């Protein structure tokens, strides 16, 4: 899979200027996606997932929001942030499209569904309104909406939650985008509907070779669909790697803790979960060391003082944690590994070499 990456985000930094100070929502995020690949970005609320995705779509609103200098979003070798308005518009909706979290508020309530789809088609493709309408009907059918011919002339409020989300997807895929960003596409939906939507997105990725960036905070969804996973915390990617590496061999205490927070079916009823104490830091004054330090069970003095370096493991797996530093006492590492064994019961299903960093 040494294919060239389609979109590359380098050192993305986004800040919001509010009364209380500058909120550093994204603090140097880098990742890349390849065609036909699904990258899941996972993290807690407020960690900067949405801001990252909006930055890619250049939807960060000035004057409050600011993408810092030095940030790069490279698509086909060109930095999106340096493109002019027109090129950016052609990219948005044409090359890259987005599914928003809450379809209820993301669809224009006073515009018919059909028009909202057609609008996108006409914007980016040289076809007539009539053809676009045909296209829209096909799209609605493709996303599994029954009776698309009548549904196309209905308003969003006449759709159920799941159908609205599907209509959102129809809008997003209307111009066969190369990249699809799905920002928590199923959060507002029921599990049964969620399953349907996820099937749909996976299907797209496989059939059209679209690169998908899936933003979520549900490990279950990631487990079922992602190729690669990036774990975000307090505006930074703390760990990133292939799906299985992340699930069976997490190298960052935060990832491990997240996995431990989800009750496992095989666990005993009412057994205490491996909860993480406290709350994520306020990004107005992010800690100078590791952002997770204060909630971390393996926190060392250095964690509070200095930002950890990135440690690279096998096959693109990397994590930013001081635990992987050469000089860290073995006892500390052992503590982490023991906990991991306890939480990830079937760790051994997935065999990799012992924690060796490949620097």
């Amino acid at each position, binding site marked *: 899979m040494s294919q060239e990456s389609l979109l590359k985000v380098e050192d993305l930094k986004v800040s919001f200027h*509010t*009364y209380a100070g500058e909120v550093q929502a994204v603090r140097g995020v880098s990742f890349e996606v390849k065609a036909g690949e699904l990258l899941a970005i996972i993290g807690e609320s407020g960690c900067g997932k949405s801001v990252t995705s909006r930055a890619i779509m250049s939807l960060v609103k000035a004057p409050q929001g600011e993408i810092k200098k030095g940030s790069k979003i490279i698509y086909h070798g060109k930095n999106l942030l340096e493109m002019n308005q027109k090129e950016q518009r052609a990219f948005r909706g044409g090359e890259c499209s987005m599914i928003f979290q809450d379809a209820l508020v993301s669809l224009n309530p006073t515009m018919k569904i059909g028009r909202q789809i057609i609008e996108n088609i006409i914007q980016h493709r040289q076809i007539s309104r009539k053809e676009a309408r045909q296209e829209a009907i096909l799209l609605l059918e493709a996303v599994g909406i029954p009776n698309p011919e009548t549904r196309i002339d209905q308003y969003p409020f006449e759709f159920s939650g799941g159908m609205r989300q599907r209509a959102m997807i129809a809008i997003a895929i209307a111009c066969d985008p190369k990249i699809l960003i799905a920002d928590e596409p199923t959060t507002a939906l029921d599990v049964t509907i969620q399953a349907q939507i996820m099937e749909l997105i996976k299907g797209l990725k496989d059939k059209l070779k679209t690169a998908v960036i899936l933003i979520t905070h549900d490990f279950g969804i990631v487990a079922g669909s992602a190729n690669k996973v990036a774990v975000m915390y307090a505006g930074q990617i703390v760990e990133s790697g292939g799906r299985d590496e992340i699930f069976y061999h997490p190298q960052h205490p935060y990832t491990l803790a997240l996995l431990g927070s989800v009750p496992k079916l095989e666990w005993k009823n009412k057994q205490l979960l491996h909860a993480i104490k406290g709350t994520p830091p306020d990004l107005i004054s992010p800690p100078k060391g590791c952002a997770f330090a*204060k909630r971390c069970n393996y926190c060392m003095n*250095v964690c509070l003082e200095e930002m950890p370096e990135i440690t690279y493991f096998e096959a693109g797996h990397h994590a930013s944690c001081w635990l992987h530093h050469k000089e860290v*006492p073995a006892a500390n590492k052992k503590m982490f590994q023991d906990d991991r064994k306890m939480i990830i019961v079937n760790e051994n299903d997935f065999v990799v070499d012992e924690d060796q960093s490949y620097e």
Partner: protein
Amino acid sequence: MNSLVDKRFELADQSRFDADEVVRPNISYWQDAWRRLKKNKLALLSMAVLIILFVMSMIGPGLSGQNYTTLTPEIKNLPPDSTYWLGTDYLGRDLFSRLWKGLRFSIFVATVAATLKVVIGCIYGAVMAYLGGFVDDVMMRIVEVLNSIPYLIVTLIILVVLGNGYLPLLFALCITNWTSTARMVRGQILKLRESEYIMASSALGASTTRVIAKHLIPNTLSLIILDMATSIPHIIFDETILSFLGIGLQPPAFSLGTLLSAGQEAMAFYPAHLLFPSLLLCLLVLAFNILGDGLRDALDPQLRD
């Protein structure tokens, strides 16, 4: 160096951490609103203007040392000079003092009428929302009826029945205005009643009075203040219109509206008699309007950030 390294990688003392730290400043809703208002330069300016106007309305009448109630026709319609800073009016009264005195009445009438309106509207709206059902329907219908009768006639009738004077005027001004407050309060209370924190409170066994005093009122207060701020300029205008029609205050009491109407008659010869009251009225209403806008922005919970 080794020992140094060791220290760095020693486990930190977890008991020192407060993982639930709250770094944002601790400010109440009102402090926050005030902060936001402070950012709005125009609103601050208009607040300053209002304070100046208010102070002037208090000290202004005495400032030039001239009598503003005694008619001295011998000196009527004088141009501005060092004794009569803005000249005298058509009956020889000091215009400068009258202007501020008139302003005082206007401000007084408007604030008191706005307060009355808000109080009546709140009580009525709250009763509507609280009793609900049939009572609500009937009371709503009354509001509707009142809304459909042109306010001028209601005012006229009240002034005619009760005579011209402060109290009838205040009464008339608020009776035609309170319905909007009542609707607003009703809507807000109905909304609040459905809100989970009110439910939580009643689940704790809170009495109705407690719910009203601790939850409903504090959460409606900002809207009420806003309502009051925005209705003051309206009431000032209404009062002007009434004075203009000759059914406002009766002498010797007077307001900006009275001055305006007298000034309009003298406009062709003594434009100043119209100009100054108009300017002052504009300034007053403008300041109230801008402040009202500023308050709207400051109090809007949606904009909170």
